[in-house]
């Protein structure tokens, strides 16, 4: 069975991805946004990530088990990120006077 999405949907998603990339680039030229720029860029990056996974990789049309498989890998890599940062920056409190 073919995917329910049409060529028009894919082209729209492609256009949204292009525009979001342009916005990300534009943010770097607006000093007034400096305090929120990283948060904005991360949010836009997550939006692009989700669009590609959901539409281009067809996850929104697939059985849920595939989504869980992917999410497991994603969560484990985030846990790994946290664990490595913790190992790197955790300091054992000194017990010597």
């Amino acid at each position, binding site marked *: *069975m*073919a*995917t*329910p*999405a049409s*060529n028009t949907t*894919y*082209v729209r*998603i*492609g256009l949204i*991805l*292009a525009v979001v*990339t*342009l916005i*990300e*680039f534009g*943010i*770097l030229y607006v*000093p007034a946004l*400096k305090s929120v*720029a*990283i948060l904005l*860029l*991360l949010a*836009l*990056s997550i939006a*692009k*990530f989700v669009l*590609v*996974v959901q*539409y*281009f*990789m*067809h996850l929104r*049309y*697939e*059985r849920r*088990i*595939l989504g869980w*498989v*992917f999410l*497991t*890998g*994603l969560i*484990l*890599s*985030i846990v*790994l*990120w946290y664990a*490595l*940062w913790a190992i*790197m920056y955790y300091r054992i409190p000194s017990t010597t006077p």
Partner: protein
Amino acid sequence: MSATHDEQVFTNTGISNRKLAFWFFIASETMFFGALLVTYTMYAYRAPTGPTPQELFNIPLTTISTFDLLMSSLAMVLAVHALERGQIQKMRLWLSVTIVLGLGFLGFQVYEFSHFYHQGLTLSGSLFGTSFYVLTGFHGTHVAVGVLWLISLLIFSLRGGLNEKRSLDLEIAGLFWHFVDIVWIVLFTVVYLVEGVRAL
């Protein structure tokens, strides 16, 4: 609903085993790139020697290469969609576009690496150099493998081997290609754009 053009398979999950296995592979690759990315974020700014990211990065150029890769993903999904509908000529066209855009991205990366090398950023010269080249180099290797895979499918198609009954072959290659794309979406933000914000 299972999306696609799966071969007539009868499995416990209702999904072709090949597709399920490939999603497990993608999950493991996610952890692989996660490890490389966290290594980059931990080491890139430690013991700075040699050229810094701010001196090297050309964000307008990287934005163009990002656009190139995103559009290759669009072309890839259109190729899969065309094959599902038995439109072989259209599939070949979009597959060729994907290959050309993939080669374009690799060209950008070769240019960037050679430029950085001539600016003094080497693989062993600094922690930034090591973590940067390993991270983006592995991504580039994945793009190169993807391009070779797509070229082989195009040749297979020209010999009449790829038709709508075998669309899963192209779909799985497409999954790999889109995965490479989502990895770059993250790298572009974490490696390049965050550096641009620091320079604001």
